[in-house]
């Protein structure tokens, strides 16, 4: 180890205008040539006695990196970041899963089955539609309390099932929610977008 005063030729390109600055730093260095108190080395060695033998390689790097408070904070931050990413990824999965297995997706599949327009020709769907209104009156009594939702009952079931999807779509589906019934719509938002 070299312990020596600064020589001006050490660093290339140091102008004479920097000499006073160097002189100040050198003066400060010379005036602060103190020594540690007696027994300093003993205290350090004593502190180290309780430490395990240092490790080599990657283990040493990891042990060093996470031994300090800053290292532990970095580890914690990384853990939180991974957890957030995992939650987001899970959310995306949850958003995709119901679209394949839940009730909402059916509409979305029925829409792509837009061959319906072509079906009207077969007229088989129309009979199926007419009976459903006839059943609705019979359903009224049972659902009479829910007249408020009179238009919703059909949809209310959907929303009951679809809340999770609508929550997933919270952004887009939020407003559409009921009116759009669209729950289907909510679910079908992507199909709509597809259109």
């Amino acid at each position, binding site marked *: 180890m070299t312990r020596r005063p600064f020589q001006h030729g050490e660093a290339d390109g140091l102008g004479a205008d920097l000499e006073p600055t160097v002189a100040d730093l050198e003066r400060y260095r010379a005036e602060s040539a103190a020594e540690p108190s007696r027994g300093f080395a003993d205290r350090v*060695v004593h502190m180290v006695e309780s430490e395990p033998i240092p490790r080599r390689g990657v283990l040493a790097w990891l042990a060093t990196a996470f031994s300090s408070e800053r290292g532990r904070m970095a580890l914690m931050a990384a853990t939180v970041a991974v957890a957030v990413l995992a939650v987001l990824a899970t959310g995306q999965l949850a958003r995709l899963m119901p679209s394949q297995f839940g009730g909402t997706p059916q509409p979305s599949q029925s829409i792509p089955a837009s061959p319906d327009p072509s079906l009207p020709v077969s007229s088989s769907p129309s009979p199926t539609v007419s009976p459903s209104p006839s059943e609705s009156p019979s359903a009224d009594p049972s659902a009479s309390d829910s007249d408020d939702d009179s238009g919703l009952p059909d949809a209310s079931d959907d929303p009951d099932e679809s809340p999770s999807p609508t929550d997933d779509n919270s952004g887009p589906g939020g407003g559409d929610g009921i009116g759009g019934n669209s729950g289907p719509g909510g679910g079908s938002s992507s199909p709509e977008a597809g259109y």
Partner: protein
Amino acid sequence: MAAATWHDGAVDDRGLADAVLAGDRDAFRILVEREQVAVFRVCLRILGRPHDAEDVAQESFVMAYRALGTYRGDGALGGWLMRIATRQAFRRLGQRRETSELPAELPAELPMGSPGSDPVAVTLAGEWQREVRLAVAGLREPYREVVALRFFGELSLHEIASVTQRPLNTVKTHLRRGLERLRPILGREVAA
């Protein structure tokens, strides 16, 4: 094997580090006794308070012990240790600033100067020392590190290049730029 050779005094830093890694505590004591003054001084020059400097120097040795397995042996062990101490000292200085800049700092500094008996000179010397410390501490990295290692740690530019794993010319440039940034603050009152 390595542990048996460093006692001869003919072993290099790598051998000393290997001995410590093999569990030889005496080898670590040799390292501490060899480097304690330099490490303490660099901490004192950055922090200004002997008590804090000793505290940080101890921390630095313990940290170096834990991290000794990462020492590659391509530079001086003392320089490697000096870099750890410099970083620790600047970190402590930052923490001290965050809590409070204590006005009680001055009296603790006085023993490190050469104040004589004139209280006015003592006060002026303390003020000037504080100014130098704050000026260097206020530099941006990597200029601060290079200036501190050269003038506070007394490493040569070659050693700094080795320790920081930067080309020598880069270190020289960093030093020059650091000094240029210090010029408006230092070098004004050399006559004082």
